[in-house]
């Protein structure tokens, strides 16, 4: 379970990216966070694994205080939280499998990492992660030789290799075309349903959010302005989150309707 207690983030420049947010995410939920650009979606997601430190308040993951954790403790918390990025964040000049095995770094002794020698068990786990996103045949291909959609699935496999309890996805489909976006979102949905992993995703498009999110959290200027199911998102709620009415730019399939 993830719990935010009066969490606030103020960046060095003075921007209040998160303002007194309190919320709870139970295990196994598929949560989508929506909001305008700059609303604080990335900040909220990055606070969960401590990539962004809170200015005040607390974040707890499985009752462990991320805010108070020292470096070593933070690494342990992070090892149970997979992360997927808009820009994939793969090491282009190495193989897909090496990228996936980055997900095992916490459980690999440093000397082994330095030598670049993985155990057969680790390689097996890496292969199984790749099989889950149906891209295992690319295991020994250089990451740079894959398409955007394939690279994002490698990103998902890397997160799965951590054997995580939670997966955070910061705009995982923002660099992809619509059909590929659905493939990636369905992968995340399957991971949530079949493995029971909590999945928290930032999305720009409201139709994708409603289609894949069991629960939708709306942020506006760092404040929690909506928390409910996709079905509850109507025109009024939309205006609360976005401060204006729905346009074609807010949906992936270019039809301005909810």
């Amino acid at each position, binding site marked *: 379970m993830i719990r935010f207690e009066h969490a606030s983030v103020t960046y060095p420049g003075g921007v209040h990216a998160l303002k007194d947010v309190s919320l709870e995410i139970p295990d196994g939920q598929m949560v989508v966070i929506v909001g305008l650009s700059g609303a604080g979606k990335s900040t909220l997601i990055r606070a969960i*694994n401590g*990539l962004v430190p809170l200015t005040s308040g607390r974040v707890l993951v499985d009752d462990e205080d991320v805010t108070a954790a020292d470096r070593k403790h*933070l*690494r*342990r*918390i*992070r*090892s149970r*939280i*997979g*992360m997927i*990025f808009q*820009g*994939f*964040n*793969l*090491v*282009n*000049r*190495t193989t897909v499998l*090496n990228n996936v095995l*980055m*997900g*095992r*770094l*916490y459980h*690999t002794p*440093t000397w082994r*990492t*330095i030598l*670049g020698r993985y155990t057969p068990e680790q390689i097996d786990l890496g292969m199984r992660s790749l099989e889950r996103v149906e891209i295992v045949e690319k295991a020994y291909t250089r990451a740079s030789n894959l398409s955007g959609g394939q690279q994002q699935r490698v*990103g998902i496999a*890397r997160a799965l290799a*951590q054997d995580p309890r939670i997966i*955070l996805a910061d705009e995982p489909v923002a660099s992809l075309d619509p059909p590929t976006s659905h493939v990636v979102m369905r992968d995340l949905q399957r991971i949530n349903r079949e493995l029971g992993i909590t999945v928290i995703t930032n999305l720009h498009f409201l139709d994708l959010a409603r289609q894949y999110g069991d629960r939708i959290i709306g942020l506006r200027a760092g404040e929690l302005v909506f928390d409910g199911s996709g079905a509850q998102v109507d025109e009024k709620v939309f205006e609360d989150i976005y401060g204006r009415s729905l346009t074609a730019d807010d949906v992936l399939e270019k039809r301005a309707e909810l």
Partner: protein
Amino acid sequence: MSAALPDARPTRPARSKLVWVAVALFLAMTAWSWDGIGFSPAELVEKADNARRIVDDMFPVAWQAWPVLVEPLLETFRMAVIGSVIGCSLALLVGFLASQVTAPNGVVYGVSKTLMSVVRSIPDVLYALLFVAAVSIGPLAGVLALVFFNVGVVAKLLSETVDAVPLGPLEAADAAGATFVQRVRAAVFPQVLPNYLAYALYTFELNLRASVVLGLVGAGGIGQVLRIAQTRYRYDVIALIIFVTFVIVFLVEALSISLRRRLS
């Protein structure tokens, strides 16, 4: 038209006066240098006879002397190999410590960066002179000189490559719970490895040429034979050394260039 639209097009901004100051300084410095060393192309013509005598002395080339050169040439080659291996290994460490992306903290970064520029500011021949004085004449002095020379060059190139690496993979490593060293090894090293290998090959080429010169000041290898030939006015032997050195450097360079092309 310009009367109708007086403000539409901007006028060209005046060139800074500093440009003229710089040009004047440049000209003055050239004149001062030219005058100072008494440089005169006419001298070349006056001394043409002397030059012709030396060229005459070079022929016929002392081909029969080649067996004497084999050992010193091998020594030069070995010096270049050892110098590259040790120098580039050290540079791998220093290069990572001298980039803000991979330095463990600001102090280590600053110290490595300073160390690097100090090492680089001393020319290789000066290193050779110092080490010949310190450990006496021979290949050890040459290898030490090459090591310092290589650390300076490769660490600098490597640290600049590390500076420019995309940071996304580092974030991914952090998010997976990696240690600092793991992050460097898994997220940065693969990104710079091809460049590093290319730099290492390139410095090997430089080393081969440099170790010829280093021999001249007593740091072992073919350069030492060159010096002896020079003191005995054996320009026919010098001609042979020039030829053989040219062939070897040319071959190694061709090989290295084709390998480096494959890396990129």
